[in-house]
């Protein structure tokens, strides 16, 4: 029983909020709105999935939001400059992935602690977005094919939702079902032990941080397509929300350990709250307050039965 609450307490709290919104928030239950929530979750879920990979190897990535902003202005700038959209997308993905790779190199090669290395690359990426844009957004009415990346549908399901599902499922599969995932986990759980067991722990960390950058690139491209514009800091606010989603997730399913299923539910809870509170007509400042209260409260449920605070981030 304790075990059950420890594992599913946060998810249950999320379910309670969901039911509450179903009953009390006008229109929340409409299928259009629920689909909306899913679409809105996609950016956060993808970014947080990347962060989960980094954290799984016990490295923090504080740069993913700014790398996403950078990738966004690169993609947007190229498209605005007339580059064929597919090339621009590849460039955006490449920039973010390269950023992740640089993080990985700094951490595993130069041995800069990830907190510092990624704080540093975050600052650099932020400066670069302003250098590229001069603070002005790239906007335009772009190739419909490109915009369809975020606004289109595939077999009646929004592309955003399809991409999110693919990212989350593949990530889940890799972390839970493959040797790579196990090696990343072992690296994060006990680096020295993993190293002595012959696991290439540095490579695992490099992969974790690079995947975080790659995910930032995917989210960036979707953001640009969704808004048909790119501006500096456009993904900046996702930093804290992304971390919150992963931490919420760490209280579920595998308490104390970053895990993809938890991250996804965490992202879902955060978007659902943002949506539900608007439908409830709460003033904006109450939304922040409620978000804080609900996050703390739902984690309390599972935390209170975990004997030791099993979080060592």
């Amino acid at each position, binding site marked *: 029983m304790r075990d059950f609450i420890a594992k599913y307490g946060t998810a249950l709290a999320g379910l309670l909020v969901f039911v509450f919104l179903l009953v009390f*928030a*006008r*229109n*929340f239950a*409409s299928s*259009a*709105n629920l689909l*909306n929530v899913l679409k*809105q979750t996609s*950016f956060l879920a993808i970014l947080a999935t990347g962060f989960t990979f980094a954290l799984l190897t016990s490295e923090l990535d504080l740069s993913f939001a700014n790398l996403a902003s950078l990738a966004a202005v690169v993609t947007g700038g190229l498209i605005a400059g007339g580059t064929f959209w597919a090339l621009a997308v590849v460039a955006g993905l490449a920039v973010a992935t390269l950023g992740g790779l640089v993080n990985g190199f700094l951490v595993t090669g130069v041995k800069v602690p990830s907190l510092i290395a990624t704080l540093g690359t975050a600052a650099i990426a932020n400066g670069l977005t*302003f250098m590229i844009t*001069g*603070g*002005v*957004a790239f*906007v*335009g*009415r772009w190739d419909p094919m490109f915009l369809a990346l975020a*606004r289109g549908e595939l077999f009646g399901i929004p592309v955003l939702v399809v991409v999110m599902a693919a990212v989350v499922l593949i990530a889940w599969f890799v972390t839970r079902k493959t040797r790579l995932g196990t090696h990343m986990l072992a690296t994060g759980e006990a680096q020295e032990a993993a190293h002595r067991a012959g696991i290439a722990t540095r490579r695992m960390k490099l992969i974790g941080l690079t995947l975080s950058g790659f995910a930032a690139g995917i989210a960036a491209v979707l*953001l640009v397509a*969704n*808004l*048909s*514009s790119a*501006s*500096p*800091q*456009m*993904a*900046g*606010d996702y930093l804290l929300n992304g971390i919150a989603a992963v931490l919420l997730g760490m209280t579920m399913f595998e308490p104390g350990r970053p895990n993809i299923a938890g991250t996804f539910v965490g992202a879902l809870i955060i978007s659902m709250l*943002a*949506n539900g509170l*608007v*439908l409830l*007509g*709460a*003033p*904006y*400042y109450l*939304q922040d307050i409620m978000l804080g209260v609900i996050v703390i409260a739902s984690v309390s449920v599972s935390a209170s039965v975990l004997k030791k605070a099993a979080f060592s981030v």
Partner: protein
Amino acid sequence: FELGVVAFQMSSETHARVANAVEAAARKKGWDVVVLNSNGTLQTHSEQIENLVQSGVDGIVLAMSKPVEFDAQMQAVKDAGIPLITVMSGASPHALFDIQVNEYAVGSESALYLLGQLGYEGKILTDRFESNVGTRIRGKVLDVVLSENQAVEVVGSHSMARTKSWQEDVRNGMNALIMQNAGNFDGIWASFDGQAFIIDDLLKQQGMQKGDVVLVSTDGGPETFRRIKSPDSMLMATVAIPFEAMGEAAVDAMQKIAVEGAEKETITSGPYLYMSADLVDQSNVDDFIKE
């Protein structure tokens, strides 16, 4: 009647002023109002518009929104049959109209006032803010004006690098410039009043008196007017943008169109409802100070 209001970034005082005015005016009419803050994040803004559409409000006012970026969302608003009015956002085919002052005109007013005070000759410091459309336009217009008046030289320039703790950023940056160029500048151009207040305080601490340097900026508001009038402030003039009046106008128009069923054309025929932004200096500041 239920009105949804989204301000792009409440931590920018001007956004908050518009949103607060809309809220106050709507409440006076007995409407329900939901005010949202997008925290300056594009995606959040788009989601909030979508969420408002889902919640089935009867009308939406957007403050400092972006019609090109949020084209899809504004279209969704229109498709849902919800009347949409934007404030200081730019024209959208999906909105009834945009309530606007002409930022280019505003920029030229303050720039020309500054140069006029200096006699088109001298050295100035500038404090800019590139991340905001309005302030950026004002800066560009200043540059155009300066390019035609080569006798006025910019000896130091600071750009806000922060969006949250910008006050300390401005204070530190401008303090450094003021000290570096002590006694070597005649005017300061600030891109909005918040910057000007901080610069004003810095100059005061240097022991300066009104008229020692010419400080101009843009936005307007009670504190600005008080300083313009006050003998120990360096602030000489501002261009007062009627944020509160714009908010009220949005509600009035919503009332006429959405509640009383009037045609949009009875309010304005074009995509804009222009309001006037007045240059305020010591000569007319008393007209703006409300008791």
